[in-house]
């Protein structure tokens, strides 16, 4: 009876725990198998513990090259899509032009389009224009599919933006450029930063669209896919684990920063009653 009551009281926790286990188990397996010492080409069976792969994770040239390519591609395309996406978001929110409503809607369509379709149509477009497939076409493709995400993240921030802050800056003698540099951009920075991280992450793990448009260029996901036929080296697990760790740290940083902002907002709400202030950071 007691056990039954306990189970009832903790049902939510148990189910949440199981769900988390379901989600995280594959990642744990990857991390654990990065310490494996497999026999033969396949790293699917636990043989014994070793640090060999961790001692020299970049020993396989093709793997390292693919990783470097992916990082370069992600860096260039995320910066490119963040700049373009931010400017598009500003145009969509701040300016009234013919077709603005349509543009606001069209910008989200790539999010709903299957990746296979995007990849295939990009490929046919590149072929029509006679573009040489390779790093360049990958950059174009990655910027293309990241822009929508950037626009959505930055746009929501801009919609909540208190325009009187910019008027206050002008009132205090700042011209348009100074106002943008000192007020608009710093206040937009969290959203722009989030958009940059998001598009970097999207780029570095993209497989489907890259597979259509890479030509002879090999990115990290493409390498793994290729290696899968022959047997994946343990080093892949090591690098995947590293990437995962970096992502977790970056996300933790974002969450901590958000918590701090929320605390400040709470404190402000507690303080004697005004609703007049602008926006939380």
């Amino acid at each position, binding site marked *: 009876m007691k056990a039954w009551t306990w189970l009832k009281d903790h049902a939510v926790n148990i189910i949440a725990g199981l769900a988390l286990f379901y989600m995280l188990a594959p990642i744990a397996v990857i991390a654990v198998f990065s310490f494996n010492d497999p026999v033969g080409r396949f790293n699917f069976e636990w043989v014994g513990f070793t640090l060999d792969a961790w001692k020299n994770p970049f020993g396989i040239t093709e793997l390292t090259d693919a990783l470097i390519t992916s990082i370069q591609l992600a860096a260039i395309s995320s910066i490119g899509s963040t700049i373009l996406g931010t400017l598009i978001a500003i145009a969509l929110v701040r300016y009234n032009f013919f077709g603005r409503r349509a543009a606001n809607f069209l910008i989200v369509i790539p999010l709903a389009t299957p990746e296979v379709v995007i990849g295939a149509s990009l490929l046919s477009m590149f072929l029509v224009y006679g573009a040489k497939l390779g790093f360049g076409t990958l950059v174009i493709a990655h910027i293309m599919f990241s822009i929508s995400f950037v626009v959505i993240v930055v746009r929501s921030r801009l919609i909540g933006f*208190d325009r*009187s*802050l910019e*008027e*206050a*800056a*002008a*009132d*205090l*003698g*700042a*011209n348009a450029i*100074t106002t943008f540099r*000192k*007020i608009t951009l*710093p*206040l937009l920075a969290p959203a722009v930063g989030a958009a940059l991280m998001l598009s970097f992450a999207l780029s570095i793990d993209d497989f489907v669209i890259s597979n259509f448009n890479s030509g002879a260029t090999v990115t990290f996901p493409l390498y793994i896919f290729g290696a899968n036929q022959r047997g994946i080296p343990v080093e892949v697990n090591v690098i995947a684990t590293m990437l995962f760790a970096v992502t977790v740290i970056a996300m933790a940083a974002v969450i901590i920063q958000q918590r701090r902002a929320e605390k*400040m*907002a709470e*404190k*402000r709400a507690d*303080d*004697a*009653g*005004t*609703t*007049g*202030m*602008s*926006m*939380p*950071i």
Partner: protein
Amino acid sequence: MESSLDLPPDEGDNGKTGHESGAEGSVRLEGVTKKFGSFAAVKDMDLEIANGEFFTMLGPSGCGKTTTLRMIAGFEQPTEGKVLIDDVDVAGQPAYKRPTNTVFQSYALFPHMNLEENVAFGLKRKKVGKSEIKKRVAYELERVGLSREAKRKPAQLSGGQQQRVALARALVNLPKVLLLDEPLGALDLKLRKGLQVQLKNIQRDVGITFVYVTHDQEEALTMSDRIAVMDEGRIEQCGGPEEVYERPATTFVAGFIGVSNLLPAVAASGSEIKIDGGPTVSTPEAADFSADERCFAVVRPEKLTVSAADEAPSDRPSVDGVVESSLYLGTSTQMVVRVADDVKMTVLIPNASEAERHQLPGGGSRVKLVWEPDHMHLTSESPEESASADTADVSPDNEKEGATA
């Protein structure tokens, strides 16, 4: 009737000294109209604000106060007419070049900067030297009592403190004209009272022209040198607090500034008016109206006395009515007396003793309201009713007793 609209302000400089800025800061609006689409938020406004004056624009929400202020600051361009600061037409001068600073209704403090950086923002734009910025920012934060909070972010302050930062951030630049848009509107009553006094003192100290916007008539009456009472994009009356309170030019002003006690009347000869259903009263103000012209006699609630209906008529003017309600307010009793179907008068009777209070006539009693001829003032009907014919875009034109705030 008296039209104080275009009079040059003569009580502008109340012997104020100590102009730290040494700047002249007069503001003039000439025939300014502002349209949003076809809707006119400000209509053909003339206004003259003298250097060093504490000038208030008072009116109900939506009457165009903020729009007027924004045209002076440079955030909006007039559709027609001219804005002059220090006799210079500022048309085409962007906000960042104007010699004005604004205290925004929402404060608009920069959330990513601490108080010091907020207050220093304007001086940095003017390329003032580092050490002087430091000195002036410290002085200004001291003045508003926030020196200890200098390194805090705006979000870590209470509403009243944020308001004072907004004031310091504007004042530190020693603008020629300081524009304040309902700066105390978001604060609770007690805080507001305290800050009203502080604001008024600061204005006396620095001698900068203040253009102050509020919808609170009490605030306007206590703080201002002069008040412009606005309604629907127009100035109904412009004058000192006493003038506006004691001698409202229109029924709207009478209603907005205090309790609207309006007795409909008609001008008789050049020196008399005949109150509808009441006596003929002689008053010099009757000269402002032509014979048979409709007007209203205003008598403030505290200037009326109540006596029994059958009391012998005195030589003072009076009207008969029925007590509708009687409300105990602590220091006084507020009585509403119906004089005619659509005419109600409010009377404030000071509460001397409890015994005396119990003597007061109760609801339903017939009473006589008596006043001194000196305490009666004549006003004309607000122009909105008569003007609606030619502007075509304004209010329902039924008899509108001025809305109280």
